[in-house]
């Protein structure tokens, strides 16, 4: 792959993953105090996170029962319910909360982890550079670090040997977990993506389930 083509792919991926946040949130959480299900949108999510300094319990990392013939190490993403499962032996999985593509940006398919990176570089797409002076200063790439929008780790999803330009990555906006916010990338909080990265091997199968997907990959 030429350097120009690789740079083009990186910019396209950055644009897809970090597009404007215009979520049509359909998520609800159970309010134990009022004993009612309440809508959980960007505003409420931010308030909840500011108040509790953590996500609602359902979106925190936990081991759950998961009946499957898929082998341990396989990643299953349930985009509609905002969960990522890492299959474990013995009919179990580690479940993580995720943020996914907003309406029209959801995708489904069967892909694989092509490569991974610690504290990945983020390169804003040209249209973001043109309209946002903060992004413009990173036109040549923002080095990895705590302020980098890709967060602590990135798992690059491939279809065969081709980069799908979708990633599983960390975030600087942890309150967006549980919402439809991205332009197709799967976002996790930094602790979770670091934990996932430590457990996953390059080549691992990734099954993405998303009812109403706008795009299919690998099938």
């Amino acid at each position, binding site marked *: 792959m030429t350097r120009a083509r690789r740079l083009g792919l990186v910019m396209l991926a950055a644009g897809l993953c970090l597009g404007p946040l215009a979520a049509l949130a359909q998520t609800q959480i*159970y309010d134990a105090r009022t*004993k009612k299900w309440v809508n959980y949108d960007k505003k409420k999510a931010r308030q909840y996170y500011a108040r509790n300094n953590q996500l609602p319990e359902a979106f925190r990392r936990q081991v759950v029962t998961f009946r499957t013939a898929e082998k341990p190490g396989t990643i299953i993403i349930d985009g509609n319910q*905002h*969960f990522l499962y890492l299959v474990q032996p013995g009919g179990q999985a580690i479940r993580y909360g995720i943020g996914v593509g907003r309406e029209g940006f959801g995708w489904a398919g069967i892909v694989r982890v092509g490569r991974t990176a610690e504290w990945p570089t983020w390169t804003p797409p040209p249209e973001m550079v043109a309209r946002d002076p903060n992004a413009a200063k990173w036109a040549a790439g923002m080095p990895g670090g705590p302020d980098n929008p890709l967060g602590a780790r990135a798992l690059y999803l491939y279809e065969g040997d081709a980069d799908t330009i979708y990633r599983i990555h960390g975030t600087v906006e942890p309150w967006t977990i549980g919402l439809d916010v991205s332009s197709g990338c799967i976002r996790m909080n930094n602790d979770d993506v670091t934990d996932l990265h430590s457990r996953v091997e390059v080549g691992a199968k990734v099954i993405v*389930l998303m009812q109403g997907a706008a795009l299919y990959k690998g*099938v």
Partner: protein
Amino acid sequence: MRSKRWLLAAGTGLAFLGGCQSPPKPEEMARTSLQTAPADLQLICANAAAGTAQVDSSKVLPTSSRQLDAASYSVDLDAGGRKFNCIVDSNGSVKSVQPIA
């Protein structure tokens, strides 16, 4: 007066029923308005459809699902371009796999 008493009794009954409803487990205290089948049940159906369609399971993908009743789900699948419907119960037992015409 009589209808007011009836309304009061009905309201009290509903409040009592509401109060008796047990809350979801902490790990289940999030949902979306889309009542899709749990991911593991969707994949159990994909595995069953791969056998019926005689295609590699890596080419079978659930495309939509819905809850039929308290104990069963319907899952639509694409198996290498052919469409199937699968009924699975909440214990993971596949009840049927049928091609969709």
